[in-house]
C-alpha cells in the first residue's frame, strides 16, 4: 500500500508542479463556462473561493431511548492565495446527548486543505482540482470522538456540467456532477493505548487500527436557475427558480489491510437555494450501509462569499489578481 500511496502522491505533486495542465482560459471561482457550481453541503466542491461557511448536522445512533444524538456545528473559511490556489481551514463543535450519561461537548479535530485548480474548460463546463487535506489528530476533544492520530488525504476534485449536450436532450443540460476521490492515510496505522479499568484498577492494553481509506464523494445536481437562464424560461416562482435539487453520496472504503473496518456511507438528498451569491443547503442524511447507522439525520449549511459582508478586496486572491471574465 505504501507504494500505491507514493505513486498517488507523486502524481498529485507532479500535476501541481506542471504548468501544462493549466488552461489559458481562467475563470473565477464557482464558474466553468455558463455553469455556476453551488457549494454542496456534504461533499467538497472543485473550486477555490474566498468565503466562510457553516453547517449544522444532527444524527442519532441507536434506539430513540438509548441511542446517542450527535449535533455538530461546523464552520470554516477558505481563501485564495492566487487565482487557482486556495486554502481551507475548518472545525466543528460537537454535542453528544447520551441518555443516562452526562452529555459530552467539544471541538473536533482541525482540518486544513490546500487545493489547486488544475484545469478548466469553459466550453465543456469542466473543472479539475487537486489538493491535500490534513486532519490534525489530537487537536480536538477525545470525549466527542476526535481521533488522536493525524491523517493526510491527497484528493482529486472535479466538476462537470452537462451544458454541452445536444439540443435534443437540452433538458438534461442543467445537470452537473461534482466529486472527490481521496486516499486517506493515518500517520499511525496501529496505535497501542494503555488504559486503567476504574473498577479493578488493572491496566489494560488495547490496539487501535487506522487503515488506509478511499474517501469518495459525489454530488448530482439539477440547477433550475441554469434551466431558466440557459435552456428554457418556464416562469417558475422566484424561490423555486433559485433551487438546485441535489443528491450527494459520501463513502469511506478501507483499502489494504482493513483490520475489519467496514465501508461506511451516506446518501444525502436535498436542495441548495442560491441567492445573491449565498448558497443555503438542506439535506437528509441517509445511512448507505448497515455499519453507517440506522437513523436518518439532517444537515443544513450556508456558504457566504467574503465580498458579501467584507470589502470587495477580501473576495480577491492575495496575489496575482484576477483574469476572469465573470463570476456569479
Amino acid at each position, binding site marked *: 500500500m505504501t507504494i500505491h500511496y507514493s505513486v498517488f502522491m507523486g502524481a498529485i505533486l507532479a500535476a501541481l508542479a506542471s504548468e501544462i495542465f493549466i488552461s489559458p482560459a481562467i475563470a473565477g471561482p464557482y464558474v466553468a463556462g455558463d455553469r455556476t457550481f453551488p457549494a454542496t453541503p456534504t461533499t467538497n466542491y472543485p473550486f477555490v473561493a474566498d468565503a466562510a461557511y457553516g453547517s449544522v448536522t444532527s444524527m442519532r445512533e441507536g434506539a430513540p431511548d438509548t441511542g446517542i444524538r450527535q449535533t455538530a456545528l461546523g464552520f470554516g473559511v477558505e481563501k485564495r492565495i492566487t487565482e487557482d490556489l486556495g486554502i481551507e481551514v475548518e472545525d466543528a463543535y460537537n454535542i453528544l446527548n447520551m441518555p443516562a450519561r452526562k452529555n459530552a461537548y467539544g471541538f473536533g479535530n482541525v482540518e486544513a486543505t490546500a487545493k489547486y485548480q488544475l484545469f478548466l474548460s469553459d466550453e465543456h463546463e469542466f473543472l479539475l482540482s487537486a489538493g491535500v487535506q490534513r486532519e490534525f489528530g489530537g487537536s480536538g476533544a477525545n470525549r466527542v470522538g476526535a481521533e488522536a492520530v493525524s491523517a493526510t488525504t491527497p484528493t482529486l476534485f472535479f466538476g462537470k456540467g452537462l451544458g454541452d449536450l445536444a439540443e435534443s436532450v437540452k433538458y438534461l443540460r442543467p445537470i452537473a456532477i461534482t466529486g472527490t476521490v481521496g486516499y486517506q492515510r493515518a500517520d499511525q496505522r496501529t496505535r497501542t493505548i494503555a488504559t486503567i479499568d476504574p473498577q479493578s484498577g488493572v491496566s489494560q492494553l488495547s490496539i487501535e487500527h487506522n487503515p488506509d481509506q478511499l474517501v469518495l464523494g459525489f454530488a448530482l445536481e439539477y440547477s433550475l436557475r441554469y434551466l431558466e437562464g440557459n435552456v428554457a*424560461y418556464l416562469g417558475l416562482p422566484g424561490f423555486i427558480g433559485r433551487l438546485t435539487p441535489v443528491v450527494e453520496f459520501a463513502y469511506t472504503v478501507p483499502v489494504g489491510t482493513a483490520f475489519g473496518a467496514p465501508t461506511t456511507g451516506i446518501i444525502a438528498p436535498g436542495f441548495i437555494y442560491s441567492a445573491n451569491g449565498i448558497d443555503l443547503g438542506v439535506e437528509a442524511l441517509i445511512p448507505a450501509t448497515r455499519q453507517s447507522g440506522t437513523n436518518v439525520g439532517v444537515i443544513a449549511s450556508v456558504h457566504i462569499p467574503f465580498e458579501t459582508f467584507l470589502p470587495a478586496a477580501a473576495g480577491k486572491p492575495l496575489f496575482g489578481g484576477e483574469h476572469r471574465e465573470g463570476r456569479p
Partner: protein
Amino acid sequence: MSRSSKSRDVPRATRTAFTLLLAIVLGAVSAVAWAAQIHGVSQKGRMFQTKEIDIAHGDTIRFSNDDDFLHQIYVKSPSFTFESDEQAPGQSIDVRFPQGTFEVRCRIHPKMLLIVHAN
C-alpha cells in the same frame, strides 16, 4: 394692536422667503431631473449588447431583457451596490448610477459584464 400687527408681518415675510426658496429648489430639482437621461442597454443572447457605456452621473440605464431566458443584474462596489430580482423575458429594470465606474454583472450568466462610466 400695533404689536400684534407687527407680529403678523414677520411671518408673512418669512412665508414669502420660504416660497421663493421652495421655488428655487424645485426649479433646481426639475432642471436636474430634466437633464438626467435614460440610456437603454439590451440583454440578448445571454450577453449585454454593449460592453461599455459612458453616462453622466445621475443618469439611468434601462436594462431590457430581450432574451428568451431569465436574467438578473447586480453591481457591487464600495460606493454603490445594486441587486435585482430575477428578470423575466420582456421585463426592464431601471438603475440610476452615481459618479464612478461600475461593473454590472448577472448572477445567472457569469460571463455577462457591462462597464459603466458615470462621469
